[in-house]
């Protein structure tokens, strides 16, 4: 790592070049694929691979701390939360082709183009007019990457750092408050409170609904519970099962040949049925 740092600023070693020309196209292809892939999860995964490639670039360019933090924070936590939401939404949901807001697509296109122009102009200026100084001279990369970063963050930039932290903290707390404000409307009852509510008669009955029980002949939900005298317990009848229309199964004569796959005389059998 330091070997790289000590080389002349701007010079590229062989190893760095090899890594760049292998991972650069991969990162670019993944980024483009992320936009054009249909499935949302595939798109998120391609973004993950782009971020991973970027992390390796950081590591190769003498910023191991930044690289691994990129993997831990962005690839590990942020994109995992994205995936979490995408998986909850469902696998079959893809982009809808209906425009919800009027003129949304045109506005999006224009704004995107504007952003692209800004980025390209900024980057081109950075490519042409900024002189690379290398890492050996500066504190951030020399000796120990972590120490250099720490001295910068907690030295000259401590106020910016603390303010950013406070901002993020406020956002997280705000999200918590919003989420909890919605869920405390029906606050959760503990086990004991539920029992007392049941005893007070706030529920339809004290005990749970009877299952098929010891007197029934089967333990399927379709079979009603039997009371000790043999009669059917009315609470155990499932309304859903009762309401489902049932067609009686046709009586088909068992034919052993149907199992073997040879259907030599099924036509004769059909004729028999029709008669």
């Amino acid at each position: 790592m330091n070997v790289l740092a000590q080389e002349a600023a701007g010079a590229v070693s062989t190893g760095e070049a090899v890594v760049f020309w292998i991972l650069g196209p991969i990162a670019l292809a993944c980024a483009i694929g992320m936009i054009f892939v249909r499935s949302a999860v595939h798109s998120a995964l391609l973004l993950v691979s782009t971020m991973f490639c970027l992390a390796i670039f950081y590591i190769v360019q003498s910023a191991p701390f930044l690289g691994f933090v990129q993997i831990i924070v962005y690839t590990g936590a942020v994109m995992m939360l994205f995936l979490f939401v995408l998986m909850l939404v469902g696998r079959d949901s893809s982009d809808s082709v209906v425009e919800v807001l009027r003129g949304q697509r045109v506005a999006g296109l224009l704004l995107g183009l504007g952003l692209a122009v800004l980025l390209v102009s900024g980057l081109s200026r950075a490519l042409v007019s900024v002189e690379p100084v290398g890492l050996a001279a500066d504190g951030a990369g020399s000796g120990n990457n972590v120490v250099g970063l720490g001295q910068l963050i907690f030295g000259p930039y401590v106020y910016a750092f603390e303010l950013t932290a406070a901002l993020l903290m406020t956002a997280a707390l705000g999200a918590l408050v919003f989420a909890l404000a919605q869920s405390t409307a029906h606050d959760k009852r503990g086990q004991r409170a539920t029992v007392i509510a049941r005893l007070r008669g706030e529920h339809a009955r004290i005990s749970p609904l009877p299952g098929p029980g010891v007197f029934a002949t089967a333990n399927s939900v379709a079979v009603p519970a039997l009371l000790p005298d043999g009669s059917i317990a009315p609470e155990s009848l499932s309304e859903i099962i009762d309401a489902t229309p049932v067609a009686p199964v046709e009586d088909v004569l068992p034919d052993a040949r149907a199992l073997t796959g040879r259907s030599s005389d099924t036509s004769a059998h059909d004729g028999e049925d029709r008669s």
Partner: protein
Amino acid sequence: MNTWLAQEPEPVEGLTRTQQLLADDPLWLILLKVVALFAIGVVLTLVMINAERKVVGRMQQRPGPNRTGPGGWLQSLADGLKLAFKEDIMPVMADKKIYFIAPVISTIPAFVAFSVIPFGGEVVIFGEPTVLQLVDLPVGVLVVLACASIGVYGIVLGGWASGSPYPLLAALRSAAQVISYEIALGLSIVAVILYAGSLSTADIVAAQASGWFGWLLIPSFVVFVISMVGETNRAPFDLPEAESELVGGFHTEYSSLKFALFFLAEYVNMVTVSAMATTLFLGGGMWPWPLSFLNGNGWLQMVAFLIKMSLFLFLFIWLRGTLPRLRYDQFMKLGWKVLVPISLMWIVVIFAIRVFRNSGNDLSTLLVTIGIILAVVLMIAFLVPERSRPQETVELASDYPVPPLDLAVPTPSRHKLRPRAAESREPALAGPDPKEGE
């Protein structure tokens, strides 16, 4: 990456001795170390599966596997071979590519994390002085965390790509679980980094020459051990593969070699976190005091490392044989409301102590003062009478037969008072005991 890029053989300014030795490694030695690490991972997995079945068996009063090989120790090898020859099933609803790549994603980081573990000190291999470690990055501890966070993708994607509800639920659980426990894990490492003054694993081991961090930073150690069990999805925190709730969890639909890869990843992860715990808190490959004369030899250090690591591996088995699985909300509560706040407070305490000591004050007077204040507060707390809570009565709304609400559990338990005469007891199936019959 580091060693591969550093092509100059001569030592470089600013590198520690370990880093210099590792940068000098020729290619064949690096390859040898990689193969050895892979072998250690696979062999430890096989041994660990067998040991787990045997130890859990012993805890449940049964022998465990004892047929295949000497003493049954080849059972997991036979199982592994059998798994490889089983039919590979691709579910109809599966997302083919992701279903295929998920086990790979979960296995590779598990092995990569192995590369920063300092197994031992300086040795000479075929005339080449080196260190028993593949790489020593200046951010070695972060590598393990990064690998853990990539490894979750395997579980999450495998569960999602199976196209089946149980694995999906397991994937969601796993995502939430690993993220929340990684926070606790990362916070418990902070104290170690503060005391060692470095993120490199070799430096952390070297910093423990005067005393293991396991003693010095007991709260961090406890939090690390708890959250490493959560991080590896092991019992009692094995909610992503809870058999009683989710069939098999995220790998319900997997079979054959893909399932074997998931299995391998789980056990290699256990080995990795055990190795990390050894490195961070138990002084790595250092022998404790009466045996400290053994520290001169790098290979003997590796023996010490493996012994300490197997203690943690035994802990994993022990937990699985002893504890019931936690409910999911209790588990998350433990992570977010107990482990994370404890770690944060502990970090603040450590900062305070270090600042206090660095500003030239005497620590013992401070501790005595705090102790006296604490004792006074406790005395007052004991003297304040307890508030009596009125027992609320519940009006029964129906005549449904319920037991009395103030039902007290009877105190004297007869089977505990009775002398323990296991040999005189009848087998359970032999009918009721005439002395107990009522």
